């Protein structure tokens, strides 16, 4: 019973990390039908941006080692609100980077009518550039936020239930809450509003959308900004839980993130969250003697899901009328 509960908590916790990563990932897919591998890099960037604001300097390696950008006593450090401000600025910067990426790496391709799959390659190139630039600038090691960024919150809540421990990490609760909140906001905007309908029209057929008076390029910019913003925010949050684990930090989520968004339904916003949680739970419930195979769980689920229900849990079926 307590095992079950603990697994549940663990699963939801890991799952919400997946979910929060996947939100921005799936957003871009939903509108452009492309998988943006640079999302992982933007996620990483968000963490580095916020870290730079909060701490101000990098120590051991890289071109800007020791260079103090925000000397001690920076306004972004000390209270939870100051940290929140830094995180928002970090996310905004990430959003802008995403817009820049769209401008430089995707838009010209659309204009030339290239194979949308090429966006995969191009975004991979962008990811490579960002990751290696980070390494050149600040080195490959990880950085950690100061322990007090969430103020006096205790790191974890530890319950004793029937002689066994149940652990709930505070950061995880924060991440879970934020991803749910984002889900609600995004879900509302996309599912219920005129903007959302237009967004879906752009996603389905940009040509037709523009024939209806929808400005395709504006919607794409907005989408990328949002995706980058969410990615950057997610990066910051996740790194407060674990550390800014080097330049490859976010990129490693890219693959698992794929499984998440497919499971939930490619391009579906609630799907990203549900997919994340399902995979998190599935992984948490792998019995420990099979833990070696845990990494395969997400992909096994993905494979089976694709065979049984390619549109994913919450995705819409593609219909084809002859």
């Amino acid at each position, binding site marked *: 019973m307590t095992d079950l509960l*603990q697994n549940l908590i663990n699963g939801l916790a890991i799952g919400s990390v997946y979910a929060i990563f996947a939100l921005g990932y799936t957003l871009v897919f939903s509108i452009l039908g492309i998988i943006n591998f640079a999302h992982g890099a933007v996620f990483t960037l968000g963490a580095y941006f916020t870290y730079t604001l909060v701490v101000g300097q990098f120590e*051991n390696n890289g071109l800007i080692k020791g260079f103090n950008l925000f000397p001690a006593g920076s306004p972004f450090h000390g209270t939870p609100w100051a940290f929140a401000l830094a995180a928002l600025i970090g996310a905004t910067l990430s959003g802008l980077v995403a817009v820049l990426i769209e401008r430089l790496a995707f838009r010209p391709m659309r204009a030339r009518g290239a194979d949308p799959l090429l966006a995969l390659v191009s975004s991979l190139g962008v990811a490579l550039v960002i990751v290696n630039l980070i390494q050149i600038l600040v*080195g*490959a*090691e990880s950085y*950690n936020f100061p322990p007090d960024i969430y103020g006096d919150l205790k790191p974890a809540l530890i319950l004793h239930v029937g002689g066994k421990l149940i652990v709930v990490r505070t950061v995880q609760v924060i991440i879970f809450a934020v991803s749910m909140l984002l889900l609600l906001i995004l879900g509302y905007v996309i599912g219920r509003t005129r903007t959302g309908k237009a967004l879906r029209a752009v996603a389905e057929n940009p040509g037709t959308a523009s024939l209806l008076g929808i400005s395709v390029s504006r919607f794409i910019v907005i989408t990328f900004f949002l995706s980058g913003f969410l990615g950057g925010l997610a990066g910051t949050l996740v790194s407060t*839980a*674990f550390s800014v684990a080097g330049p*490859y930090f976010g990129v490693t989520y890219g693959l698992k993130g794929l499984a998440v968004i497919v499971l939930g339904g490619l391009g579906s916003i609630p799907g990203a969250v549900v997919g994340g949680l399902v995979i998190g739970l599935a992984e948490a419930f792998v019995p420990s003697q099979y833990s070696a195979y845990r990494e395969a769980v997400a992909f096994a689920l993905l494979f089976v899901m694709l065979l049984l229900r390619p549109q994913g849990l919450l995705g819409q079926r593609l219909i084809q009328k002859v």
Partner: protein
Amino acid sequence: ADKVATPVPIGIGVAQTSNTALLGQEQVIGARFAEKYINARGGINGTPIKLVFQDTGGDEAGAINAFQNLITKDKVVGIVGPTLSQQAFSADPIADRAKVPVLGPSNTAKGIPQIGAFIARVSAPVAVVAPNAIKQALKLDPKIKKVAVLYAQNDAFSVSETGTFQDTAKAQGLTVATVQKFLTTDTDFTTQVTAVLNENVDLVIVSGLANDGGNLVKQLRQLGYKGSIIGGNGLNTSNIFPVCQQYCDGIIIAQAYSPAQPSANNQLFVKEYTAQYKKAPPQFAAQAFTGVQVMVDALRILDRKKKLADWELSDLRVALNTQILAGKYNTPLGAISFDKEGELNQAAFYVAQIKMKDAKTGTFVFLK
């Protein structure tokens, strides 16, 4: 046929890009430092050395390319590298067939020196180093009974290390209550940690790399684990300080290297290194330094027999290999030598415990 160039080129083929760069980064620093240190002391009997760096990346093909460049284009006399054992299995045979001596600075997997006559290493295999940590932990806390073992299943070296840890633990009469696996790319370890907590163990042994290992320790402590922690070789770097911060405190790590090693050689090395980098040399840097030093020491002897500039490159490489295996060296690792296969004989190993001064800075304190 080629002559030996001056300054004498020595190849460094380690990971400067990719995920593995985190470790390679320290090796680069150690080697660079060695070059400066040695040339400041007259190089090889007056002839300076010149290190040639070729990035291996993190994969096998990258290591082969780097080695091949070093061997034929850069015409190095010997190579220190690569970073990972898996890369060594791929690239070392290339050097071996080309009859170029290789010193593995960090390859700890089983079977490395056996790749060929030209392959040796300055990194002691896990089977030799790891057991010391458990013995030390028991010395610190004789009441330890139950152990949890965790390891990164996608890292070759962690996998072999955990085997040694588990065997030693059993040999010392401890019960291995749970074995948990993770990936070097993991960031969330709640699942593993709760499994550990629920077993009520008194000792946790972690084999992984710096990021994941550090995070794991941090989460263990945050979630209330109070017992002892042993970290494997991958955690043996000050890079983990920013990861687990104050939670790093108390991790016991078996060392192939200790800044506290008392030899005069080491103390000088530590002094100058610290003066330059503002921190004590980490193991990977010290081992890379040692690799370069061993090559140079061996070259000095050869140079005395016949000036290096007069050697045919290919002859020198062969002679260098023989000389490396034959010699005894006073290095930061202490007095070392090699057996005939190229396996390292190292006199002393160390066990250190991390002491954190504040969230960022800490030291490895060596235990007696």
